[in-house]
């Protein structure tokens, strides 16, 4: 890749939820702004913009990461998943999302897309994770509504349903 000038926009290409996408970005463009404004994928929320709140968490090459601490140009060539990629069909929620609904794991919903992406990645890697490990994972997110307990209950329920193979 040649040196990309600050003054110009450059083509950025990656896989978003399994589909190839591309757009134009200046080097300083943050990944969440590229997702939201350039690609129109507004499911990823933007909170603190300095890596503390976790609202903008997406999956990059299968790992949860804060999109506010990644430049769009850094993500060129990566495999990115956002909350839009979770539901198996437009009229169906994923097991994790369904558990969030059932256990009231969200109120205002601002932090939810980030938490879902963290949990989705983690439960795939460690389907039998302990409650302590789930709490540790959730420490990377701020939620000011729920007090976290319903989020933990939803995560535990999703764990059970996923391991039992219940659709």
């Amino acid at each position, binding site marked *: *890749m*040649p*040196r*990309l*000038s*600050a*003054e110009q926009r450059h083509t950025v290409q990656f896989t978003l939820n399994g589909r190839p996408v591309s757009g134009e970005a*200046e*080097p*300083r463009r*943050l990944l969440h*702004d590229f997702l939201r404004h350039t690609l129109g994928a507004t499911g990823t929320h933007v909170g603190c*913009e*300095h*890596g503390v709140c*976790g609202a903008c*968490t997406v999956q*990059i090459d299968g*790992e*949860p*990461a*804060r999109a*506010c*601490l*990644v*430049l769009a*140009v*850094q993500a*060129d060539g990566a495999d990115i998943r956002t909350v839009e990629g979770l539901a198996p069909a437009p009229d169906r929620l994923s097991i994790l999302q369904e558990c969030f609904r059932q256990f009231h794991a969200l109120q205002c919903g601002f932090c939810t897309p980030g938490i879902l992406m*963290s949990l989705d990645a*983690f439960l795939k890697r460690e389907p039998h994770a302990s409650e302590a490990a789930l709490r*540790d*994972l959730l*420490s*990377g*997110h701020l939620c000011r509504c729920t007090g976290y307990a319903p989020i933990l209950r939803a995560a535990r329920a999703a764990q059970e349903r996923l391991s039992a193979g219940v659709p």
Partner: protein
Amino acid sequence: MKPPKFDYLRARNAAEALAVLHQEGGEARVIAGGQSLMPMLNMRFARPAVLVDVMHVAEWQCITDTDPALRIGAAVRQVAVMRHAGLGQRVPLLAAALPWLGHAQTRSRGTLCGSVAHADPSAEVPLVLAALEGSIHLRSRRKARTLSAAEFFTGMMATARADDEVIEAISVPTVRAGHGYAFREVARRHGDFAIVGCAAAAGPDDVRLAVAGVADTPRSVVLPADAKTWDDALDAFAWSLDARDDLHATARYRRELVRRLGRDVCLEAQQCRA
């Protein structure tokens, strides 16, 4: 908060990265995982003319696991080190400290060398390097050199790295026969910046205790093996760190943590001696 304008260069090899640093000097900043630098850019504490992305430099993507040290390249993410086979046996202190480094969502991107370059006084990786007497490998187009932690960390977020140098790797000493290791820290929440972090390496004759979060750099002291002699030495060490009051804790509280947490960590390290 958005970053200021900068050019971006994704280096394909070490020579390309070093050439930009040679040309631009202090106007260039190396970006690896970006978990320290990106907040600095978003808050506009840093305004580089060009970012040099080193994550695709193959020479810097390796973990070399040969005694006497685990050599971790500039482009190795923290999560990759945590998943390195046998880390707990090979470098038990690093295995104990890494889960405290930020959160899973930042360890997925951040690098150990990046944490060392940022040199936050409360950071875990610099603390481990101080406790184990590890080293930092710097390279520029002019030369390569290796510094100890004591030589490298010169002040709060200040290091001996020259403008045209990159940290190409760190070496973290592997477990030594007859030694034990322990790590603990006190933070408001797990994953927050440590108020005080302590790491200890205990051998048959003595214990090296390193402390982060109190002085401007990680600092260490060597205590004799006999715990009965520690009280005065720990007290003197705690005072020598010139603790300051801040939003999170008073200087007095920090000194007390050095005394108590320091003692506990040293004892635990002795009990872990293999």
